[in-house]
């Protein structure tokens, strides 16, 4: 057989020709050497103590950051009080008659401003003369 078919055949043969054990060994670089760890001496103990000296304060500081339920509750109560005061002071108190007068003024101002805009628009652009 020739061409692509031949190549495929060769590849198939190559895979099938190896025993499963040898393929498993060649899965990657694997050169473990068993070096014995040095037994711990005085220097090693001092080194560990130094690291512990750094980590312990950090750990303690983390513990103090744990949420304090009493503090949270106090803050929550403070927020509630603040919000209720906030809502009380929104705007300023007016009487019903004042509100109606202001409402009327809003309406009239809106109509006045629409008219003013129309005047502005009329002053622009083509001005038709009476002779046209």
């Amino acid at each position, binding site marked *: 057989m020739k061409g692509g078919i031949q190549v495929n055949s060769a590849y198939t043969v190559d895979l099938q020709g190896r025993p499963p054990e040898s393929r498993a060994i060649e899965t990657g670089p694997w050169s473990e050497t068993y070096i014995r760890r040095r037994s711990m001496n005085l220097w090693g103990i001092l080194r560990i103590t130094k690291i512990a000296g750094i980590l312990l304060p950090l750990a303690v500081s983390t513990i103090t950051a744990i949420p304090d339920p009493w503090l949270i509750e106090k803050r929550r109560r403070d927020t509630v009080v603040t919000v209720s005061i906030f809502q009380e002071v929104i705007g300023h108190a007016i009487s019903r008659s004042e509100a109606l007068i202001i409402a009327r003024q*809003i*309406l009239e101002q809106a109509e006045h401003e629409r008219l003013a805009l129309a005047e502005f628009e009329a002053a622009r652009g083509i001005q038709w003369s009476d002779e046209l």
Partner: protein
Amino acid sequence: MIYEFPDKSAPIQQGDIFVSLPRIDISLNNVLIAGETGERAAKWVEVIQRYESLNIIVPVRPVTAIVATQDCDALHGRDITLCEISEFRDVERKSKDCTNPRKLKNIITQHARINQKWFYLPPDEGIGFLEKMAVDFMVTLRVPRAELEELRDLRKGRLNQIADEHFRERISEFFRRYPYDEWYPLDQEELKAYKVEYPDAKPFPWQQTEITGNGDKK
């Protein structure tokens, strides 16, 4: 004139003219809060930080208006949008003191092509217009469709076919407008003449190159 008078049972459609519909005006600087313990006045920016919804006092005036919502939405939508109809002399102030028919003719026909903010409605006793009127596209109001259908007695008529087609195009033109500085294509001489009338016009970068006596730019 340009109106027709549909049967009361006819569904609401674009170009229908209603009277006495509520136009609401709101001030964002003076929101009148109706509270259980009394009224308060506040600015809108203060209100939105503290309330999800609230009851306010708003001024309202009954006005004449024309349906702007297109027919399909006017049949099925929850709300219907209308534009206020006012006297023509208030909407187009060029006509306020004009009695000359030739000038009025120019404003109504020629100016209508230029100014897309209004739609002219001629007087007609049948529909209740004793003066020249105009749709002011700048002023809209919104009402619930189902409730407006119950108030079809307030519908005085609608635009006829020609006027309705024109109205449909004009309202779409109004909402598809975009802002631009009209002096942008003028050359320096034209811009100079333009600034005599509109001194606030600021030249664009391509209008700032001067042309010297021998025709070179500098």
